[in-house]
């Protein structure tokens, strides 16, 4: 396989939910071996993009290739084979609540391999050590803090040694210390394991410190892309609004509504 080819290659992709277009003519290429951030205002379909990349939903039209595989023609079995090469970190960690931390991390190994108990134990402890939670192996998910759950989920996501690691909003609701830990882990895992990372987030400042490349999504398209520094100097209105965190701009402060004055003055009882 061509190592230079992008790991995710999306061309002219359309996707609509209940007739409302989420993406219209989306083009995005995510290079191998780098940390790529996908940012954008809420509701621009960042999570939907992840679901498309992981094959949880399929596009209405356009091309989408992941790790050289055409997602449009994959059978369920082929999709599952491809997913073993991906790891995904969900927003809340999505740990299996019936299992201990150790068993959560061991879960993919037990399901997909016939490794001996001894080897599983070694692998799990190595991954837990990498996220700094070897000491928490016997705890149950309910006993963990938000940041710890996410680190356990991260250990679980890397236990099968994936090529591609996907993070869905990894910073939401974390205290500054946990946030710093996750940021450092994203960078360190990417470099030491030689994998590709995709981080969906809207935390502009945080993500700028680790990402090699940033894409800004808005209105179903990529409106800007490049190194984090380039984005800060981008003159486009929408980029300025997003990076600067301005309340009003191309993304309006007000949700579309009828004229304010006439609605206040109207006698109708109906809202």
């Amino acid at each position, binding site marked *: 396989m061509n190592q230079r080819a992008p790991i995710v290659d999306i061309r002219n992709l359309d996707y609509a939910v209940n007739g409302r277009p989420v993406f219209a003519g989306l083009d995005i290429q995510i290079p191998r071996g780098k940390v790529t951030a996908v940012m954008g205002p809420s509701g621009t379909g960042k999570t939907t993009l992840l679901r498309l990349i992981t094959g949880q939903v399929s596009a209405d039209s356009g091309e989408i290739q992941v790790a050289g595989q055409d997602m449009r023609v994959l059978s369920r079995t082929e999709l*599952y084979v491809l997913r*073993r090469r*991906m790891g995904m970190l*969900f927003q809340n960690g*999505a740990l*299996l*609540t019936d299992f201990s931390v150790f068993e959560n991390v061991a*879960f993919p190994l037990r*399901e997909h391999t016939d490794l001996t108990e001894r080897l599983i134990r070694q692998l799990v402890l190595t991954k837990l050590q990498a996220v700094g939670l070897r000491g928490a192996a016997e705890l149950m998910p309910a006993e963990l803090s938000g940041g710890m759950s996410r680190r356990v989920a991260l250990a679980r996501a890397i236990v099968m040694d994936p090529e591609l690691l996907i993070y869905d909003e990894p910073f939401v609701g974390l205290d500054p210390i946990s946030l710093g830990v996750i940021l450092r882990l994203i960078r360190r895992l990417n470099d030491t394991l030689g994998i590709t990372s995709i981080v969906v987030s809207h935390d502009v400042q945080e993500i700028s410190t680790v990402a090699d490349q940033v894409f800004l999504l808005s209105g179903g398209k990529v409106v800007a892309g490049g190194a984090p520094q380039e984005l800060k100097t981008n003159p486009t209105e929408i980029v300025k609004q997003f990076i600067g965190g301005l309340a009003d701009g191309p993304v309006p402060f007000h949700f579309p509504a009828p004229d304010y004055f006439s609605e206040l003055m109207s006698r109708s009882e109906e809202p």
Partner: protein
Amino acid sequence: MIGELWENFTDALEGLGSVVHFLFRLVGNTPRVLLRFSLISQQIFNSGALSLIIIMLSGLFVGMVLGLQGFQLLQRFGSEEALGTAATIGLVKELGPVVTALLFAGRAGTALASELGLMRATDQLSAMEMMAVDPIQRVVVPRFLGGVIAMPLLAGIFSVIGIYGAQLVGVQIMGVDSGSFWSQMRSAVSLSDVTEGIVKSFVFGVACSLIAVYQGYYATPTAEGVGRATTTTVVTSAVVILFLDYLITAAFL
């Protein structure tokens, strides 16, 4: 008005179709899950063993009531000795399977539905899919089979304890002759009565477990959605059990 009725009717048919389709998916995955029996035995414990106390207590009381009512009724015709037969046939053919299924829907069905619904709401099912583990195979089918296996066992236990309860009241308290209580029962209750009970409890097991896992698996991933799935599980199970009970009873005549 007619249009609305028609719409409701087609909606109901659509719902039934998707439940049946879901059942086929479960059955299709069953052989592979049977190879990992430890997953199923865990669920037999969850649905079956943990329902034992409530099933045994209910069985005892239902049997005792049968003993009391049956004695009063039979006494009018001077045939108290038939109490053993009457209570046993009532329990084995009817009350055992039906009451067990209703209790099972309330105890195990709701637990299954809310567990699966919460797993959906907290992304645990999506996480499994992302780990290339089919949640139907890993989570849903073992729970379904656990329920299907547990139900006839529970119904059997219910009936046995119920008969003991009837004996307790009829023989020990009301003074029916012990020898005729048991011997009449043994000569009058036939294998087909027991078969009918087993068939019923098996069918109820399939129906209750299917409704519970279906409601949980497709629950709207919100607090309200999981709550609704749990309620629907109990209500639908109860109606379906009683309806199927009539059909099977008619079929065995």
